[in-house]
């Protein structure tokens, strides 16, 4: 008994002893536990720490981003929130050696709240942040990155401060990393378009209660902006809610800003820095105090884009709508002549001419046809608008952005053209639909279904002619879009309806005859033209895959010819049919390959090659300085993604080349791909452990100027100008 008790006591102790360390363990873990990676949510906002690339190379700058998904009706703020609220701030907790840079703020929205104006973001937002990954990081390691993001999430009614703990485990590996499949492209887009210095010169002067900002040069020179708005980095300088009016000139523009209370109370404290946003782009400007710059006036007034934005966001000018509708009507009329449609109409016209002495019947048939056409267009348009609303960029206009779709359209045009040339016939399928059972129904029902079939068959023919009207329709709000589609239908049905309504025209109808065939063959040529044009667009969109498309076209032509032969001569039909199928498969295969072809890269080829460069060495720098020439040094590496972005954006443009020449500067490139020691030492001398590092030495100055890690053309040009002085 006692033994049992002792045993039980021992068991209890052992169990608690076993439990205790694990409780301690848990406590330790809880204290030290990294917050869960992935999106963190509250009622109003979802935030996530993401990386632009799938891994980071040691000694490079990686780009992270705070992804925000904000509930509709709520928003977060820019670095200058405007009249109320507060900016998003980040508190980082990073491993040793990893250091964060400043947030690269995308252009904010103007959010008007009664008499207040705020600058912020809504919907899905990415805030990129560059971080330096030290060279001491080892490939195969994972860096645990943590940040507490403090947001002010505000609606019209209230502000809720939200603190979210975000974490990301970033792998470290050698070599250039690919874009993260989920958000990499989106982050890269923000990095490319966020406003940054562009070499614009600006002056500000506060006099007579008015703040005047002039900005010239850079992208503004010779440009014709329609509107301009200035977002200051500091509050209190301008009255955020006031209208900004301006004038543009040959070299730039002038803006009149209503002063804020801080300005009125304490005067202008230069420099006045902020973002200048126009319909042509948005850039960072920093204005010193001074009189207006020349060339900033005299070419007309510009407003601040509030009105323009409102119109692009929702309403469309009635004149635009009328034009689109008229164009659609005309397109519909032309559709009648299209070979896809005409055969059906020809058959019905023949039937009409038979019933020429029964005008009421003809009228009824005509109206039923109209109803059928309009109904089908409504259904098609409805489906398209539903898809559009479903968030897909599907639409006759939008398709010309994807090389795959362009290739498919090109092949389709080719097939239609071959059909028109008489190479093959779409037998009892579509063209004979005029004979089909539905259309043969007596009276109005038959006419209704002929209308339906006319639309179905016409759809492939609409692309070249109707692209504009459909594109406009897809951009407009849906009631207008629907109306444009209906105008298309009206245009298509109009000749037939007119003829059926007016008995006299009936007798003027041309009799079906061989002229139809001639017209058909003639109309093949615009189709060939369309196919060629689309092939050309495809060639421009892809790097080198035009040959694939040509091959696909050739196989398709062969397949269709064989098919046509099998239709014509029934004896050889089997063999020809099989051969046709085989060629079709070949055509499809090549077509798919063509569709999958990589789009041509939008950034330029290795850009350091564009600027004549020499390899970096300490001696080279000194030699150039001794000659009195400024030196621009670029430390880069093949596996450094940020370096490549900067080289493409800033170091390979003609403006930079011009600026280099004007400053008589020497361009030295230090290639750290193999991490040689001399460059490592130089990087460390400047307090960096990785690339990119951009240094600008000016003759006569001991220490070089370090340029920002996210480089722009404007920054380089400005720096070169300063160095040359």
């Amino acid at each position, binding site marked *: 008994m006692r033994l049992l008790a002792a045993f039980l006591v021992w068991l209890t102790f052992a169990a608690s002893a076993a439990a205790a360390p694990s409780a301690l363990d848990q406590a330790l873990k809880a204290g030290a536990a990294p917050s869960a990676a992935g999106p963190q949510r509250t009622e109003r906002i979802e935030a996530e720490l993401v990386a632009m690339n799938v891994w980071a190379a040691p000694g490079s700058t990686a780009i992270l981003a705070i992804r925000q998904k904000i509930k509709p009706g709520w928003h977060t703020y820019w670095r200058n929130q405007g*009249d109320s609220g507060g900016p998003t701030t980040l508190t980082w907790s990073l491993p040793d050696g990893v250091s964060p840079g400043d947030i690269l703020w995308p252009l904010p929205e103007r959010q008007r709240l*009664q008499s207040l104006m705020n600058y912020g973001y809504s919907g899905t937002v990415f805030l990129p942040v560059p971080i330096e990954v030290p060279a001491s990081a080892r490939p195969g390691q994972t860096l645990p990155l943590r940040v507490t993001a403090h947001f002010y999430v505000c609606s019209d009614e209230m*502000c809720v401060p939200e603190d979210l703990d975000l974490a990301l485990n970033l792998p470290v590996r050698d070599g250039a990393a690919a874009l993260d499949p989920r958000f990499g492209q989106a982050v890269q887009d923000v990095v490319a378009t966020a406003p940054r210095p562009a070499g614009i010169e600006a002056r500000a002067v506060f006099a007579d209660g008015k703040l005047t900002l002039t900005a010239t040069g850079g992208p503004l020179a010779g440009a014709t902006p329609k509107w301009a708005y200035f977002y200051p980095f500091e*509050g209190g300088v301008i009255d955020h809610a006031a209208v900004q009016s301006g004038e543009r000139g040959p070299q730039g523009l002038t803006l009149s800003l209503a002063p804020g209370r801080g300005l009125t*109370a*304490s005067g202008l404290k230069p420099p006045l820095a902020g973002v200048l946003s126009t319909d042509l782009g948005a850039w960072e400007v920093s204005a010193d105090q001074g009189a207006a710059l020349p060339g900033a006036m005299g070419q007309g007034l510009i407003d601040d884009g509030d009105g323009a934005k409102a119109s692009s966001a929702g309403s469309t000018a009635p004149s*635009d709508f009328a034009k689109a509708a008229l164009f659609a009507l*005309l397109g519909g009329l032309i559709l009648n002549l299209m070979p896809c449609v005409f055969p059906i109409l020809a058959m019905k016209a023949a039937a009409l001419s038979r019933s020429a002495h029964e005008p009421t019947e003809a009228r009824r048939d005509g109206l039923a046809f109209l109803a059928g056409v309009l109904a089908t267009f409504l259904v098609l348009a409805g489906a398209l608008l539903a898809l559009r609303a479903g968030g897909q960029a599907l639409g006759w206009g939008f398709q010309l952005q994807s090389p795959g779709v362009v290739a498919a359209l090109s092949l389709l045009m080719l097939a239609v053209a071959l059909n028109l040339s008489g190479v093959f016939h779409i037998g009892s399928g579509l063209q004979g639909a005029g004979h089909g059972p539905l259309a043969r129904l007596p009276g109005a029902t038959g006419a209704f279904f002929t209308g339906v079939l006319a639309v179905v068959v016409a759809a492939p023919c609409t692309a070249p002619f109707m692209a504009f009207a459909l594109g406009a329709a897809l951009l407009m709000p849906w009631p207008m879009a629907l109306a444009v589609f209906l105008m298309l239908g009206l245009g298509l049905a109009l000749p037939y309806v007119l003829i059926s309504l007016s008995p006299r025209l009936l007798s003027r109808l041309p009799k079906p005859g061989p002229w139809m065939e001639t017209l058909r063959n003639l109309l093949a040529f615009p189709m060939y033209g369309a196919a060629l044009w689309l092939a050309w667009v495809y060639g421009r969109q892809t790097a080198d895959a035009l040959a694939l498309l040509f091959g696909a076209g050739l196989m398709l032509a062969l397949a269709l010819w064989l098919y046509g032969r099998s239709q014509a001569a029934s004896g050889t039909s089997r063999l020809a049919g099989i051969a046709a199928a085989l060629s079709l498969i070949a055509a499809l295969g090549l077509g798919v390959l063509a569709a999958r072809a990589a789009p041509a890269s939008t950034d330029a080829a290795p850009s350091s090659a564009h600027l004549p460069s020499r390899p970096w060495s300490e001696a080279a720098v000194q030699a150039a300085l001794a000659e009195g020439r400024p030196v621009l040094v670029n430390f880069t590496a093949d596996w450094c993604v940020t370096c490549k972005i900067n080289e493409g954006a800033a170091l390979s443009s003609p403006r930079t080349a011009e600026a280099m020449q004007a400053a008589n500067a020497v361009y030295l490139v230090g290639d750290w791909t193999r991490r040689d020691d001399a460059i490592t030492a130089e990087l460390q001398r400047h307090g960096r452990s990785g690339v990119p590092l951009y240094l600008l030495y000016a003759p006569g100055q001991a220490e070089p100027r370090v340029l920002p890690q996210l480089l722009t053309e404007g920054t380089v040009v400005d720096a070169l100008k300063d160095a040359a002085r």
Partner: protein
Amino acid sequence: MIRMLTVASASLLLLAACQQQPVATSDKAASAATETATPAIAGPGDMAPAFTLVDAEGVQRSLADFKGKTVVLEWTNEGCPFVKKHYSGAMQALQRDATADGVVWLTIISSAPGTQGFVEGEEAKAWKAKHQAAFTHLLLDPTGEVGKRYDAKTTPDMRIIDPEGRLIYVGGIDDRPTNKIEDLAGAENFVRAALADAKAGRPVQTAFAQPYGCSIKYPETVDS
């Protein structure tokens, strides 16, 4: 047939050419009118606009009643996170110190009915005790008229008026525009500094600071 084709394609091309016209620019007169129509907002050094409001007890209070005393106006909204930071003790302490010196402290609520911060009746009477505040009077401005008259945009937003009725301080309460309580320590409180300057007979050193906070919940119908 051919004729129809030619006519059709010609008109098509014509229409296409018409598409290139730029969109009409907006009305310039409107923007010009806005500039001239904006009334002058009183800033530091100007006479403070007169007003009369009913306080939480139902008594009418006018600015003129307090002529000869230093008056502090404080816009507040108890739901705003920025106000909550200050009402964690710092604002109450400042109110106590100021009123002990003979300063009249008027707390104003300009929230429209139904919006965050609005109070009336019993709730208004209980506001002072609820927040352990030490203001002289709580004024209710549900139409937002007085707030707009002073161009108050955020909560908190502060004004200090000297005994002659002139504004000597306009703007935010301190220089740390966050909602975090730990940012109170070490922040420069401009109201405290201005009151000290006024008491010592000095001109106020910082007469304006950028205000921060939540937007005041004005009703849509009030025109500025």
